[in-house]
């Protein structure tokens, strides 16, 4: 099930979020940021926005620069949301592939949506995902997880649904001790009134707040933040050539 959205409004809001992330990360001067935000008033992009929705998931070429594609990613409740992809050139085999260790609560609903979404976000950067697979239980699984984090170039941890199953924080601790660059996403619940926060979720302890923490209200919010922030995160940690 997907919510109906006005194509032009969606594209404008999506790109506004992207430009804001570029601005905050120091990759876009303020003057250029406001020029780009103001440019949406001309409405020239409306036709492309409508084509993106009408022909999804077909590629839409943007003359001289590359292709765009509108896809649908997944919320943890089974819903879908639109997502705009700038399509990268095929990843050069000469570039070294990176591995990202992913830790999250092992629940079918989270697994089905989060893993599907993350694949779309990390693949354009040549990053393979390595899943923790199971909640920490057996001794061998623990060893396997330590080994997985050790051999990864970076880590991603999500705390959704971990209130009574805080294993993901142990994994965060292991990655911290091994000095691995990591993204830690913290579910903070929807902001609008009348929508209930998903239970069984704690918050990231204060002593972990120095790490790159992404607070999110839903997977749509999380996916945009990762997508817009990943290039700068990889640069900062020397993970891009």
């Amino acid at each position, binding site marked *: 099930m997907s919510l109906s959205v006005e194509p032009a409004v969606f*594209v404008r809001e999506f*790109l506004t979020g*992207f*430009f804001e992330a*570029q601005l905050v990360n120091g990759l876009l001067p303020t003057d*250029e940021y406001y*020029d*780009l935000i*103001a*440019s*949406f*008033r*001309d*409405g*020239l*992009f409306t036709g*492309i926005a409508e084509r993106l929705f009408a022909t999804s998931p077909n590629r839409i070429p*943007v003359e*001289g*620069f*590359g*292709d*765009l594609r509108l896809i649908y990613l997944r919320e943890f409740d089974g819903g879908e949301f639109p997502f*705009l*992809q*700038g*399509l*990268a*050139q095929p990843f050069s085999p000469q570039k070294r592939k990176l591995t990202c260790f992913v830790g999250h609560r092992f629940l079918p609903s989270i697994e089905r949506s989060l893993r599907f979404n993350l694949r779309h976000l990390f693949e*354009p*950067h*040549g990053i393979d995902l390595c899943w923790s697979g199971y909640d920490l239980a057996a001794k061998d699984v623990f060893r396997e997880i330590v080994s997985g984090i050790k051999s990864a170039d970076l880590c991603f941890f999500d705390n959704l649904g971990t209130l009574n199953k805080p294993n993901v924080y142990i994994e965060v601790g292991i990655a911290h001790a091994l000095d691995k660059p990591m993204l830690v996403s913290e579910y903070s619940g929807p902001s609008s009134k009348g929508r209930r926060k998903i239970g069984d979720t704690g918050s990231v302890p204060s002593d972990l707040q120095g790490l790159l923490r992404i607070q999110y209200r839903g997977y749509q919010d999380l996916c945009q933040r990762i997508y817009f922030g990943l*290039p700068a995160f990889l640069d900062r940690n020397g993970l891009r050539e």
Partner: protein
Amino acid sequence: MAAKKKTSSTVKTLQAKPKVAAKRTTTKSTQGAKKVAAKRSRSKLMVLEEKTAAEKTASKKTSLDALRFFVKTYANL
């Protein structure tokens, strides 16, 4: 009304004074040179104004530029 007329004639006299003074202190040749210089500075100003307008047009972004900026960022990963 009479008072008003008096005031306007006084203003006219005051405005006329510098013109007379200018004629007395400058020769015909210096006047010509001044006119040429003024014309030159006016044309320089016009060129500057045109340049600024051209720069403004060049820096004005369209929403298609915004889309291109986005595509370019992810195309060159």
